[in-house]
């Protein structure tokens, strides 16, 4: 067996191999803007004979009208329920007949729709997107039926112990800010939201000048841009811009505690405020997250799982949002272990990282893990398209490359500074427990 080379050498080699030309995504990118304001990006690569289109509207839960929480998500469902050319269910049937796949997701900041097709038939996605952007039907019977479907979706989330805990913790952390609202809304808000509210929301925000379209995969740039122009170029602009004044979250003073009872296993979720996605500290926080919780060598995994044997698993995550986001640390506790002990150990780990800067070798491990995670996560064209669309809609064209560069450049000193700023639960955080009923 040959020994592993040193961390620094490995990093340089890996970065060069993984990021040819310093680009965060494989292939050549071309950015354009149609006369109606639609931002278009073509990512041309030939790794597989497939194409994904991702259309991202800057319209999410944060834009839900007062009293009508869940409108953005409700509208996402209705976008599949009929437009002038594509009746209810027709989009899925057409997608299937062409051997494609489609889906959509709503976040607090945006709503994204995507199609993946073989490279010889992808323009059907443009026909569908143009039709439902301009002429969505919003039939009242379909609205009523879909409302019932979303009620079942809410019930599903409420039944799942982690989902239920996450919604409660996020509501407490982001009190006063739209990020604290549940994406699905509440049952009461759902009842109060009908065709009129959905139509107003769509008319206001589903316009070309409030959207980004990415076409990724085996396409010719010129042809793809011409196709986009042909299908979407004639749609009228006119999106209503928000005033941009979102109230800041009223972070908890100190560590707010929240306790629920569900299931037979103790579950811990600690949420800490984190910088917005375009803040220079965001990439450094990504590295901190890897250092804390990615892989068996990470501090939390090693201490709480592999060596401490207190938790069956842990997970760390960092949201990437327009306003301040959050760092979440989740742990599922081994039955029989005192929850207080897990909490104590976790808080001690964070305090230690604030007190003592990590060694260079530890930082390199985290960087390698984060880098490989980036490359493997973006192996498929669909993943490339989605990352690019969201980055363009919420930030700018350089966002992904800039994030990756910062990730590669961050050293122990900047990590320590970020830890000092953000890893202090006592300065404002939410610690949620889901405890066994017994």
């Amino acid at each position, binding site marked *: *067996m040959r020994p*592993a080379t040193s961390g620094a050498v490995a990093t340089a080699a890996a970065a060069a191999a993984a990021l040819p030309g310093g680009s965060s995504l494989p292939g050549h990118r071309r950015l354009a803007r149609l006369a109606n304001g639609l931002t278009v990006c073509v990512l041309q690569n030939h790794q597989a004979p497939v194409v994904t289109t991702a259309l991202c509207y800057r319209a999410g839960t944060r834009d839900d009208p007062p009293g009508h929480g869940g409108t953005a998500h409700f509208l996402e469902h209705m976008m599949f329920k009929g437009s002038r050319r594509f009746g209810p269910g027709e989009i899925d049937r057409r997608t299937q007949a062409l051997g494609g796949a489609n889906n959509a997701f709503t976040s607090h900041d945006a709503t994204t729709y995507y199609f993946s097709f073989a490279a010889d038939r992808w323009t059907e996605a443009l026909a569908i997107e143009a039709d439902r952007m301009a002429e969505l039907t919003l039939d009242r019977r379909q609205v009523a039926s879909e409302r019932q*479907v979303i009620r079942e979706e809410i019930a599903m989330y409420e039944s799942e112990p982690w989902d239920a805990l996450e919604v409660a913790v996020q509501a407490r952390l982001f009190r006063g800010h739209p990020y604290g609202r549940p994406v699905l809304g509440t049952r009461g808000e759902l009842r109060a939201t009908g065709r009129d509210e959905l139509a107003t929301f769509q008319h206001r925000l589903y316009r070309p000048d409030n959207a980004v379209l990415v076409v990724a995969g085996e396409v010719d740039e010129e042809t793809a841009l011409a196709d986009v122009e042909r299908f979407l170029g004639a749609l009228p602009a006119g999106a209503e811009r928000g005033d941009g004044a979102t109230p800041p979250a009223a972070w908890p003073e100190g560590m707010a505690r929240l306790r629920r009872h569900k299931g037979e296993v103790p579950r811990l979720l600690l949420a800490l405020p984190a910088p917005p996605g375009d803040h220079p500290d965001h990439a450094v926080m990504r590295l901190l997250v890897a250092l804390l919780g990615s892989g068996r060598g990470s501090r939390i995994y090693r201490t709480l799982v592999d060596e401490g044997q207190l938790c069956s698993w842990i997970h760390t995550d960092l949201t990437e949002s327009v306003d301040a986001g959050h760092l979440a640390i989740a742990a599922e506790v081994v039955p029989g272990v005192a929850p207080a002990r897990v909490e104590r150990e976790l808080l001690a780990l964070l305090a230690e990282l604030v007190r003592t800067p990590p060694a260079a070798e530890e930082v390199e491990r985290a960087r390698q893990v984060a880098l490989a995670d980036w490359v493997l996560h973006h192996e498929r064209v669909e993943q490339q398209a989605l990352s690019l669309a969201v980055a363009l809609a919420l930030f700018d064209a350089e966002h992904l490359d800039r994030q990756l560069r910062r990730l590669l450049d961050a050293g122990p000193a900047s990590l320590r500074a970020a830890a000092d700023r953000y890893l202090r639960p006592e300065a404002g955080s939410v610690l949620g427990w889901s405890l066994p009923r017994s």
Partner: protein
Amino acid sequence: MHDPPTETAPAAPAREPAAGLAEAAGADLAPGRPGLAARVRRVEGAPVVAVRLWLDAGTRVETYPGQGLLTGRMLEEGTWRRDWRRIAADAEGRGMDLSSFGAFEGHGVNVDALAPDWELAVEWAAELLREPSFPEERCAWLARQAAAELEGMADQPDIKAAWGFLEHLYTPHPRCRPVHGNAASLSRITAADCADLHGRALAGGVIAAVAGMIDEEAVGRCLERLFSDLPPRRRPFPPPAAPEGLPSRRHQVAVESADQAHLYIGHLTVRRRHPDYTALELLAVILGSGAGLTGRIPERIREREGLAYTAYAQTLAGAGEDPGRLVAYVATSPDTAAQAERGVAEEIARLVEHGITDEELEETRSYLLGREPFRRETARQWADLLIEAEQYGLPLDDPFRRTADLRALDRRTCEAVARHHLRPEDLRVTIGLPG
């Protein structure tokens, strides 16, 4: 392409070959068949490599519930050269995702790495597979960890109801229980038990797959160097008990769910190698495993009747060395569970009695053909596909063969397969209800 209608009688659905003497433990799989079966493929795209080493021994042949899972997981807990800390540090220092696993049909090692590290990835995977030290203290912890995971999963109502459905259909076959086994059994499994299962599995031979931005010949030479001393493959395990199922048609499971019922409806179907597999895949799409919310069951349950957020159907769930299953799943309010159950049963019966339309056949065929490039997009997908192809002795990695199989299906054949393999009168219903 539209297949012309045929006047000949629909083909009779094929029968599976009966288990023969060759299934007996210890019999030669094939005289002189080498201990390593390797598949290597260069995949253009991201600069990564995926390494998979697979042994045909998992839950299916374990002696104690949970033994297959623990045996697989123990491989990364230490070798005669390195302990678990060193293994993790070396791999993560290179950005490798190195993990060992125990699954229903097998256990083994997976490594995903950046392409320049391909040789280290193959060597380290081989080290874990061939030189595990099975440290006792790690086995005790992994058993506790698995028991905790089991308890955590039981808190999720859909998973708990799904376990009830497996028990309903497969008892006493090992598929009737979770791969994790149960807490009592896990607590008694020792490192020696894991070493024993692994040792016997090695005698059955190793399947290796390496895919990515690699030099195929160089990888082939590396595998030859690492595995050439393996003895010829033998069949080290007897087949498991045949699935019989619980005697009752209905089975109720108490789940922790505020106001949702979790319905699983279906019955056993066929094994992975069955000649009707492709036709059943196509029927699954027609029932409810295609794009978005298409398929007769989701269209009726979700789109027309608004009963559920999640509704889908499969015809071959879990098909492998043992029979898979027809399964329709719906999560709905307890008040509408009866309506949903009736809807699913009626759609399955309608498919069997009235068949499919030419339009459905063509759309579904087009869908399955169109999905092909997406199954071969990444090195990881290729590596998994190569393992499956070798495991079942099927040309799954050959896109032309797959296309030909799909194009050969006509409506009458599909309808005959539906009548033979989908049995509305045999449907079993497992319902998870708040309790």
